Each structure stands twice: as C-alpha cells, then as structure tokens.
C-alpha cells in the first residue's frame, strides 16, 4: 500500500506542539512524518542528539509516544534490550532508535553494528544533519567534503562514511535512504520497514538551517535539491536487492551548494570536483541496481 497525502493527513503522529526545536528543523519534520507512518504502538530510544533538547525539558514533553533517553554510544544496544524484553513477554511493539549522525556513524557505530549483526527486530533511524549540531556545529563522520563547521573552519577534508552501505554489508533485511524533501518516499519506506522482521536501517537527510546556514523557510527545498542534484540519492536495499526510488531531476550541484553558507568558501572548480564524485556514486548505484544482489 502506498501512502498518499490524504492518508498522511489522517494518520495520528506522536509529535505535539511546543517542542524546543529551531525554526525550520529538518529532524523535527522527519520525526513528524515517521511517527505518522509508524503509529502510536512505537517506542523511541534516543541517544544524545538534537532530539534530546527538541523533545522539551522535564516535566514537559512534545512527544506523545514512549521515549527513553540514553547515553550517546548506547542507543542500538538499549533498543535491543527493549525489543527482547517485549519478545520475552509476547508483546509486539515497534522499537525505534531515533539518533543523529554523531550517535550513528561515530560514537554509536559499534552498538549499531552489533545490533545489526544480531538481526535485532528494530528500526534504526539516523536523522542526518551532517554534523554535531546540538553542541554547536562540529564536524562528524557524516559531514560532507568541503563543508565548514566550527572544527573544520577551512572546510572538511575527508569524505563522509557511507553508512547505508556499511549497514547493507551487514546483510540486514532492509536499508534505505530518505530525505525530508521527498516526504512520500520517506513515509512509504517506513510503512514498508514496519512490516519487515529483523533489522531495518533508514538514513534520513535532515537539513539544518543554523548548521548549514540557509534561510529557515528553505528546509524542504534544500532537502529536495539534495536529491535532485544527485548529492543525496534515494534508494532502498531490500533483501540485498538495490532499487533507486526517486529519479533526480538532473539539477546542477551548484544550486544545492550555493544555497548554503557552510559551503561559502568553496570555489566553482571545487564544486566541479565534488560533482564528479557525486556522479560517480550515482553511476555506481545505477550499476548496483542492475545487479541481482548488492550483498
């Protein structure tokens, strides 16, 4: 079943007014969509990340589903414990990790890899704002090449980790990328994931107005352009088979880059270089799509 805008409007989400998010927050947009797709029979495990603050301080909460905050490196292991406890008492609940990129690709990667290898029945979500935004914009293993952060004042010199492919190499039943710029692609991936048994990994690009330095009303546009410029391809790997889920609208990378202050020092030649890398990745994905299995 494919979810349409009419269905989505009727679905109850777990996000209530009064959160402490920044205006234009991509992660919040993502959570609103995801919680509608997953429904109220869902438990969220949240390591240190922007959402530690976004959910609002005690004794209030902007989240109407059960949510447990845990130490930075521990989310996937904690979620494993929650899932196994429910299994032990025959309860069927969606157990979801809701983690930022630091908690996923850096400090949380060990617990994540362990849970994926054990095939725990979880949905692990990385909402990726491409740096440590909650601590005030420091580079992470997910920060793109050339991007400015406070710990890469002249631009990052390394490529980010390809986390979805790292998870796909664990041969988990479902891996997908998503963007808040393509909400129906996003919710349909969660709709699919919740009906698959085993470990599911969904990596959502979540544009961050203060961290990426773009106007707060442009979050959806930046999220769309990331896909349409091939910067953030949307695909899923189900049972080892890769499928590109959104065909980009073939826009030049420059349009995505020049919208954001974090790339302000990048030259046109460097954009060309970056575009080359991005297109190589895209061609590689097209090649993988033709293969019987990726892993």
């Amino acid at each position, binding site marked *: 079943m494919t979810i349409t805008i009419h269905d989505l409007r009727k679905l109850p989400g*777990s996000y209530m007014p009064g959160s402490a998010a920044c205006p234009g927050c991509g992660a919040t947009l993502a959570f609103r969509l995801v919680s509608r797709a997953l429904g*109220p*029979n*869902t*438990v969220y*495990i949240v390591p240190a990340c922007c959402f*530690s*603050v976004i*959910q*609002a*301080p*005690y*004794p209030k*909460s902007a*989240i*109407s*589903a*059960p*949510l*447990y*905050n*845990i*130490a930075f*490196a*521990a*989310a*996937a*292991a*904690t*979620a*494993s*414990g*929650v*899932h*196994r*406890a*429910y*299994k*032990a*008492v025959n309860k069927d*609940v969606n157990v979801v990790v809701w983690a930022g990129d630091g908690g996923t690709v850096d400090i949380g990667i*060990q*617990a994540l*890899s*362990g849970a994926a*290898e*054990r095939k725990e029945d979880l949905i692990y979500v990385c909402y990726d704002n491409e740096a440590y935004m909650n601590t005030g914009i420091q580079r992470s293993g997910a920060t793109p090449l050339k991007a400015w952060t406070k710990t890469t004042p002249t631009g990052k010199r390394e490529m980010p980790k390809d986390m979805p492919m790292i998870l796909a190499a664990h041969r988990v039943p479902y891996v997908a990328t998503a963007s808040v710029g393509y909400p129906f692609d996003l919710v349909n991936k969660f709709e699919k994931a919740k009906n698959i048994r085993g470990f599911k990994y969904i990596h959502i690009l979540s544009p961050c107005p203060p961290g990426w330095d773009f106007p707060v009303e442009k979050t959806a546009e930046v999220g769309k352009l990331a896909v349409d410029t091939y910067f953030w391809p949307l695909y899923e790997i189900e049972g080892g088979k890769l499928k590109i889920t959104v065909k980009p609208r073939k826009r030049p990378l420059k349009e995505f880059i020049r919208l954001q202050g974090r790339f302000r020092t990048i030259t046109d030649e460097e954009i060309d270089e970056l575009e080359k890398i991005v297109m190589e990745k895209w061609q590689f994905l097209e090649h993988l799509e033709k293969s019987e299995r990726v892993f």
Partner: protein
Amino acid sequence: MGKEGKWEIITGNHAAAIAAKLSRVKVVPAYPITPQTTIVEYIASFIDSGQMDAEYIRVESEHSAMAAAIGASAAGVRTFTATASQGLLLMSEVLHWAAGSRLPIGMAVVNRAVGPPWNIHVDHQDTMSQRDTGWIQIYVSSNQEVLDTILMMYKVAENPDVLLPFMVCLDGFVLSHTYMPVNIPPQEEVDVFLPPYNPTHWKLDPTSPITFGNLALPDEYQEMRWSMDLAMRRALDIIEDVTEEFFERFGRYHGGAVWKYKLQESDYAVVTMGTMASEAEVAVDELREEGIDVGLLKIRSFRPFPHRDISETLIDKRGVIVIDRSIAFSSGGPIGTEIRSSLYNLADRPPVVNYVTGLGGRDITHQDIIAMVKDAIGRITSRRIRRPYYWFKLKPEFERIEISEEVRL
C-alpha cells in the same frame, strides 16, 4: 521453613548463574570477561537447553551489555548480567544511567584487578571505582552467599522504596572458580519468596506513554539525586527485613548490611569485606586463643553504607583494624575512609588503623590478618598511628622505601 533444597558442590560462578535462573530473569545481555566467563556460559546453556525461559543477548561489549539491560528493565522485565574489572569500567557511564533511571537490574561482579598491567586476579579496585554510580553493592564470602544474596537483592532492589540496581561482588577465582557445597533452594520456594517483577514506578509502554530522561534543569535535578540517596539509605532497613524473611523461609543467614563475629565484649574489631572476612574469622579464633580479645565486623553492604550500625557496634572498642583490598591513591583504603566517617563525630571514638593489601590477587591468609591485628594493637597501645593508612605485605625492598617515606612524614 518450606521444602528442603538440594546440595551440590559448585563454583561461585555456577551459583550466580543458578541464582539468575531461580530468579526467573527474562533478559540476560552477556559479554565474556575472565573470571566472570563461566557465569554467562552456564546461563547460555540453561537457556539453550530449555531449563531457563529468557532472552539471551550476545552483545558486542560491556557498554552494550549494560545498555541492553537498561532497555530490558525499562520495558518492565527482570534483568541480569555479569562482568568484572575492565568490563565494569567500560560500563561506568551506563551504570550511572541504570541507577538514575531507577531500574532494579541485577549484576554479578567477579572482582578482579584493573590494568595495566594485565592481571586477572582478585582485588576490589574495579567495584570501588564504581561505588558512587547509585548501585547497591553487596560483597560476599562464600558460594552459598553468592546464590542467596542474588535472590535476596532482587527483592530489596524491586521494593518500591528502593528501585535501584544492585551488584553482588564475589572475589575472582577465590569464589568464582572454587568449588564449595551449596544448597540450591527449590524453585517453588523461591517463587513464593520472590514474586514476578511488576514495575509500578514507570516502564516503556505504548498504552501509557511517558518521556524518560529528558533535560532536567537546575531547578529539578538536585531533588532527583536526593531521591536516589534517600532510596539508598532506606534500602538499609529493607536489607535487614529481607535477610530475616530469607532466614525464616530458607534457614540461612549471612548477616544483613554487616555480619558480626565474636564482636560483643571484644576489645578490638577487625573490619573487612569479601573472602578476606572468611580468613579474618579464622584469625579471630586464633587470636582469642592467644588471649587477644578481637572480633570481626564484615561489611556486606558497602552501598548503602551502614554508618549507624557501625558506629553503634564500634563505639566501645579500644581500636579498629580496617583491611582494604583496593587503594584510593594517597587517601587510603575506601573502607577505612568510610569507617572513620562513621566514627568521627562520636565523643569517645576508637582509633582506626587502616591497611591496604591483597592487590592483584596477592594472597592474604589468616596469618597475615593476625600479623596486621598485632601490628595495629602495637600502634594503638603505644599511640604510634602516624599515617592514615599502611601498606601491608609489600616485598621487603619496597617495604623499606615505604617505611622511609613514613619517617619523612
């Protein structure tokens, strides 16, 4: 008293695993470390052979073992794990998280020295370094006590006035790998003593959603820590009640927060923990035969620390000899520090001589304890307690350096 148990000759680790089975824990996250390993091996075999109905999570680190235990307990089921030494240290961050979340997780810690250098033998540095994580810490000195204490402590920890996690600390190899006769109580008797865990304070439940652990600002935080401290203090009475109840049902008593041996009317008291306390019992008997009037106070519960019981018991002594198996560098033995704290505000407090010894598995026999007691009595009677603590059983060349340091003080 109910049905009789069954006698078996087993190791301390086997006793810990059987206790987890008898407690009907539902989730066991496990990661191996010497000398804890056989605990998680026994539990794996119990589960795989169908003797135990529980989920076993083969995690990839101790940090994840404790994180998974937190998740399971937060979802509302009884949870058990075990570790030692470096494993406990790796858990440190999430130990705080378990206690702060008020989750009555049970854990066996097989005490082992910490590196470097690598050393797999007993001392208490690992658990002492985690004493302020909000976990109840009970130190035991026999395999029977390992088994019985785990059963008792679930009942204490799950009490609505407590709701804190607990570690039962057993000395590496001295208990973990040593065979002793242990009476294994019948499951039906344990079931009556320890009913299923049913959290009423909070749990992760989609039919009753709550957010747990979000930001608490300075206006809220301090009272949350106070409530943990209050729970820890209240646990002292509950430990006494539960050990009484256990005695009535099973006929065994290992002491409550402390175990007292020939302490009444004695001039001097030896204070120690773990298996050194068993050696100290023998030492007390031999010293009394020599006419030296000494008794033993074994600390079972280091957290909560039984200050009142200790000060009331030790007030009339001529001197107190405290033997620690860990070192707070430049400060002394952690038990020594606590005992002084118990006694300091008393008007006629006895002098305290504190020894640090037995590190990294250095064997401490009853003869060593006799030597420490005699050395201490000499210092007490001649008023020569010049240092807050003394190292004991250093090699002679190091002892010489230590003595010259003492003169310089």
